[in-house]
């Protein structure tokens, strides 16, 4: 059986001592930093990203994805204990998780979050293993026109689905595409927007954008706001959920996993939307909906399962099509590109050890999270009390040194400061930075495919509508736009303050 052979190959790669070590380091670092107050998964990845740059491709990606789900797990810990969601994906966990903590049930809440995430992670990993190869094979038939339409769909979806305004989201995509243009044009060798700065001829570095936009701007926003709320200071005594908790949480976990897995592969939706959807589903199904928001364990299990499942399945379009569905996946894609791997369906065929090793390591990483985190909860709680005034200069330090280490030049540092300012202004003007990052990552590829598609069709733009797969993506793009303008769906979108 192919699947089995592939998984054996993957586990063979992932179980090498070196990769296990990097997986562990990634998971531990991710949790450690993600648990710090005011530091969400995106900041964590953006900040630690340059460290992985000096590693070979496989361990680098294994470590990076370890950081990713570690940080996500750390984020739910802060949601439960401090009522401070690191990112929108854990906003929902706050509602009931924090209430559980206040009722002295922080332990079971944390354990439920960990176990539900683990279950969802296992299912998610299996889904990638099953769905990946057929997706990749299907995508091998794609020509330039199909890719171009697919990217358009992904970009439009990312703009439309993020919280906030659709038109601004679309404009941010265009800004990102333009930032991606900077550098030497591959076709003509001409320098574009480099202003005679030699360091710009390779384009604006990926780390520069990611760190500036997500870490630096985030710190300024945090500093401008009031100090964080009360920190849960009670001792966590009984960690394990009682039998009734397990019964109550079991089905919501399964349903959350299913919802999350579906949302994860849809472009632009990502973990955040899936948690909202599953929370509403549980509330509808519950016999007594009024318990929600007052410490219902279902309200922790379902969204935690959903965000982990969708975090896993969002790897499917990223790995098989080369299309990121969220800002975090854009970061992963950027990491792959920096490692010299051209993302797309050919990755699975040409680098099976990377693809399957990564998948196997995800499962191992999820297992490590459960083993690592439950006994270490006490340490994480203590970390929550580290004041932000110690944290933010240290984060800046990692950003600076990390960014400098990529190219060893100061221009990158100045650019990062500049992007940070831009990022802060954009946040103040309520423009979401995530679509910008997606645009930036996909920009150069999209231009290339656009040129190629129109060259082959001899300049006839109808090529995007006459080829069936491309047409399907175009219709998909249109549908996303239409559906999102409809008021019923807009209400479902997570709003910043929800």
């Amino acid at each position: 059986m192919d699947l089995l052979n592939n998984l054996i190959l993957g586990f063979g790669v992932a179980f090498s001592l070196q990769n296990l070590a990097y997986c562990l380091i990634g998971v531990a670092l991710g949790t450690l930093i993600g648990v710090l107050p005011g530091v969400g998964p995106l900041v964590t990845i953006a900040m630690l990203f340059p460290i992985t740059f000096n590693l070979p491709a496989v361990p680098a990606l294994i470590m990076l994805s370890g950081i990713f789900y570690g940080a996500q797990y750390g984020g739910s810990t802060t949601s439960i204990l401090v009522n401070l969601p690191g990112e929108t994906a854990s906003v929902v966990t706050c509602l009931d998780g924090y209430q559980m903590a206040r009722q002295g049930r922080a332990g079971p809440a944390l354990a439920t979050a960990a176990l539900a995430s683990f279950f969802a992670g296992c299912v998610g990993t299996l889904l990638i293993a099953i769905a990946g190869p057929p997706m990749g094979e299907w995508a091998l038939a794609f020509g330039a026109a199909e890719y171009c339409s697919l990217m358009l769909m992904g970009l439009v979806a990312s703009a439309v689905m993020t919280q906030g305004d659709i038109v601004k989201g679309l404009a941010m995509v265009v800004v990102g595409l333009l930032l991606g243009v900077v550098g030497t044009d591959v076709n003509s060798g001409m320098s574009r927007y480099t202003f005679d700065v030699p360091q710009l001829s390779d384009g604006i570095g990926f780390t520069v954008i990611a760190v500036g936009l997500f870490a630096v701007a985030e710190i300024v926003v945090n500093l401008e706001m009031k100090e964080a709320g009360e920190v849960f200071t009670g001792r966590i005594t009984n960690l394990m959920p009682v039998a009734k908790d397990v019964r109550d949480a079991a089905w919501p976990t399964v349903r959350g996993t299913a919802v999350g897995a579906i949302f994860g592969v849809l472009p632009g939706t990502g973990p955040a939307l899936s948690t909202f959807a599953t929370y509403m589903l549980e509330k509808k199904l519950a016999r007594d909906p009024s318990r929600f928001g007052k410490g219902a364990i279902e309200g922790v299990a379902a969204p935690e399962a959903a965000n982990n499942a969708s975090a896993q399945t969002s790897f499917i379009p990223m790995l098989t099509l080369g299309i990121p569905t969220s800002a975090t996946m854009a970061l992963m894609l950027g990491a792959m590109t920096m490692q010299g791997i051209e993302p797309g369906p050919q990755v699975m065929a040409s680098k099976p050890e990377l693809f399957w090793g990564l998948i196997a390591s995800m499962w191992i990483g999820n297992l490590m999270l459960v083993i690592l985190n439950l006994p270490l909860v006490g340490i994480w709680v203590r970390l929550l009390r580290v004041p932000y005034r110690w944290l933010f200069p240290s984060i800046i330090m990692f950003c600076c040194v990390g960014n400098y280490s990529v190219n060893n030049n100061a221009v990158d540092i100045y650019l990062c400061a500049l992007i940070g300012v831009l990022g802060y202004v954009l946040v103040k003007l309520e423009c979401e930075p995530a679509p910008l990052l997606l645009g930036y990552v996909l920009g150069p590829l999209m231009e290339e495919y656009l040129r190629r598609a129109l060259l082959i069709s001899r300049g006839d733009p109808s090529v995007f509508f006459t080829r069936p797969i491309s047409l399907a993506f175009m219709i998909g793009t249109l549908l996303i736009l239409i559906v999102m303008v409809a008021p019923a769906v807009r209400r479902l979108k997570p709003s910043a303050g929800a």
Partner: protein
Amino acid sequence: MKSGLLNNKDFLAGLLFIAIGGCAVFFARDYPMGWVERMGPGYFPTALGIILCLFGVYVMLRGLLSREAIKGEWGWRPLSFITLSIVVFGFTMEKLGLIPALLLMFFAAAYAGREFRFKEVAVLAALMSAFAGGVFVYGLKLPYPLFGGY
């Protein structure tokens, strides 16, 4: 909340988009455009710039109608000192070495916070710089001198 032009968030966002789009078109004027079948290096960015300007005009006009204000104040202090700390690091890294650059960076960054306690910052800066030196120079073997330029 109603607002004047200078803190009207959509007006300013639109203006920013128009500025970026305008710059994109302006600086692309010397790049050969080519035509649809054989796009030159100027085609894609010029098209994007124009699209961005159109989005910008729409957002700006909408801002003029809705007049929604920016939430909260501009955080000038954190913005300027965080930016300064990064620039200082970039500037001193190659001239003074990793440790002095990090020490300066820490002091500049700490000024961005609400409270600045000199002793605390000094201890934090010293500890973290030593840590960074250990991890990056000795651990990851990055080729930077701890002190002195290169």
